[in-house]
């Protein structure tokens, strides 16, 4: 079968109004749309049951879509499944392996299943990169959980996919494998492989992803460049609790864009730490002293991605829908 080599930067995966209603009537995906560029790394975040696995499973052909469509390198996943599935490698969330197979055989099996001629040199490269080479003749049931996870990754890479789905690759994985895994991810990205991963670890998403998507109640409620999110993260707030309530801000404080709380007892100053050095905390404090405003306490805070995330997903489902519509 012909191998398609998508151009870096072109849209390799286009999810269009994808919905999934399971047989019991449960709507696990609600009109999800997302375009992913070749070579991108996208992290999908979301609480348990949000629909991350359902989204991945639908694209990979494990779950039938109820409506909407998905194009992989311009090909429809239902009508051109031979082309689209050959481009995709999937590392599932659940650890499922055949107990009585050897590592070598199970990885070679995967390559054949995806229609590629045997290539022992490639299998060897994959096994070595995952530190599985010395286990190649071991039965899978004799491997530890972390090694089984590596085997699943090796299977997914056996046919040289252009898109790799990693469904919670770091669940139950030790620090060394986690490091190995991110080393592999960056090697793959260097070779132009598009990576879509789900995780519950926000630092992980921050560290490796180009874009971050948040799914909740089957809806994609946020997709943003990591840098844009980091800019939001870069915002810090200084809160000053005053002794005496203020009626209004004195003119001398106008340039700083301070906010005064309703009861007049709190001043909030938002500043950007990413703009080097030039944050005027000292000027603000100077101006306050000159205006004769005294405070009894102060603290600074920084919103983390985690806070943004928790804030987003804790809204009730219809509240989010409204939020997204506005």
């Amino acid at each position, binding site marked *: 079968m012909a191998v398609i080599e998508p151009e870096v930067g072109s849209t390799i995966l286009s999810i269009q109004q994808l919905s999934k209603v*399971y047989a019991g009537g449960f709507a696990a995906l609600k009109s999800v749309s997302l375009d992913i560029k070749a070579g991108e790394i996208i992290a999908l975040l979301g609480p348990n049951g949000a629909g991350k696995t359902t989204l991945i499973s639908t694209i990979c052909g494990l779950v039938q879509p109820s409506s909407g469509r998905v194009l992989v390198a311009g090909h429809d996943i239902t009508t051109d499944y031979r082309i*689209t599935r050959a481009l995709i490698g999937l590392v599932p969330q659940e650890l499922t392996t*055949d107990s009585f197979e050897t590592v070598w055989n199970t990885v070679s*099996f995967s390559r*054949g299943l995806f229609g590629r001629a045997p290539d022992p040199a490639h299998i060897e490269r994959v096994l070595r990169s995952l530190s599985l080479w010395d286990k190649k003749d071991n039965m899978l049931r004799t491997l530890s959980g972390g090694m089984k996870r590596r085997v699943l990754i090796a*299977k997914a890479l056996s046919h040289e996919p252009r898109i790799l789905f990693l469904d919670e690759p770091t669940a139950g994985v030790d620090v060394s494998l986690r490091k190995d895994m991110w080393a592999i991810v960056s090697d793959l990205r260097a070779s132009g492989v598009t990576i879509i991963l789900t995780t519950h670890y926000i630092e992980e998403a921050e560290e490796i992803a180009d874009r971050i998507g948040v799914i909740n109640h089957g809806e994609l409620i946020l997709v943003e460049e990591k840098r844009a999110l980091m800019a939001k993260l870069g915002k810090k707030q200084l809160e000053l609790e005053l002794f005496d309530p203020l009626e209004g801000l004195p003119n001398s404080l106008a340039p700083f864009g301070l906010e005064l709380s309703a009861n007049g007892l709190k001043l909030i100053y938002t500043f950007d730490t990413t703009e080097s050095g030039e944050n005027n905390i000292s000027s603000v404090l100077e101006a306050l002293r000159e205006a004769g405003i005294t405070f009894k306490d102060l603290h600074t805070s920084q919103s983390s991605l985690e806070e943004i995330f928790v804030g987003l997903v804790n809204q009730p489902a219809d509240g989010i829908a409204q939020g997204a519509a506005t």
Partner: protein
Amino acid sequence: MSTILSRVMNYYAVLAIYKFEMARMRRTLLQSIVTPVLTTSLYFIVFGAAIGSRIQEVGGVGYGAFIVPGLIMLSLLTNSISNASFGIYFPKFSGTVYEVLSAPVSTLEVVLGYVGAAATKAIILGLIILATAGFFIELRIAHPIIMLLFIVLTALSFSLFGFILGIWADNFEKLSIVPALIITPLVFLGGSFYSTDMLPPVWQSISLMNPVLYLVSGLRWSFYEISEVNVWVSLVGVSLFLLVCLGVVYAIFRTGYRLRP
């Protein structure tokens, strides 16, 4: 050859599934071979020597020779069904089926791999029984090609049936209930070890409703040219069953029944 084939179908996938399934069977090779040899020998000792000494001949054939096609059919049916049903049930149960479902393979390719391997093993076992029988009696096969045709068609169609069973079953009981409660009784009541001529007329007509009778009768005809029903009826019957099972498998993959939610 492989490059031409791989252009029209996912030939490597068929081969991968087939080899995987045959390897699974090889792991239990000893018991796979010893069991049919032992049970066939037991049948010959019990039915052939003990009962056969009283029955003498059926339709001009010695009793020991008479039961050979029935023994082969019993083994073909039970093995085809259990090989194929287990072959797909287990990955479904353990979750490893995700890989086949996410692979660029068509229904036909999946079926060729799984059903082809299950049928291959059933055919090998059938031939082992035939060879074992050769130790006890003098075998005479009037139409070897028709015999092989029957064996292959039966193994294929019942492997397909087993494949469907394995997809349908959602627990181990269901998996074993069909072979034990339906197939084995049908084989025993289908004239495997007696001729329906020996039965009262009412039972003769009832026996004609047993599909396995047609299989046993057809296979026996290929050996001794004696049959209860016309051999072509048997051949057409088993071919139709094969087509029906193929149709059901197609419907299963089209609708995603029990495989793709």
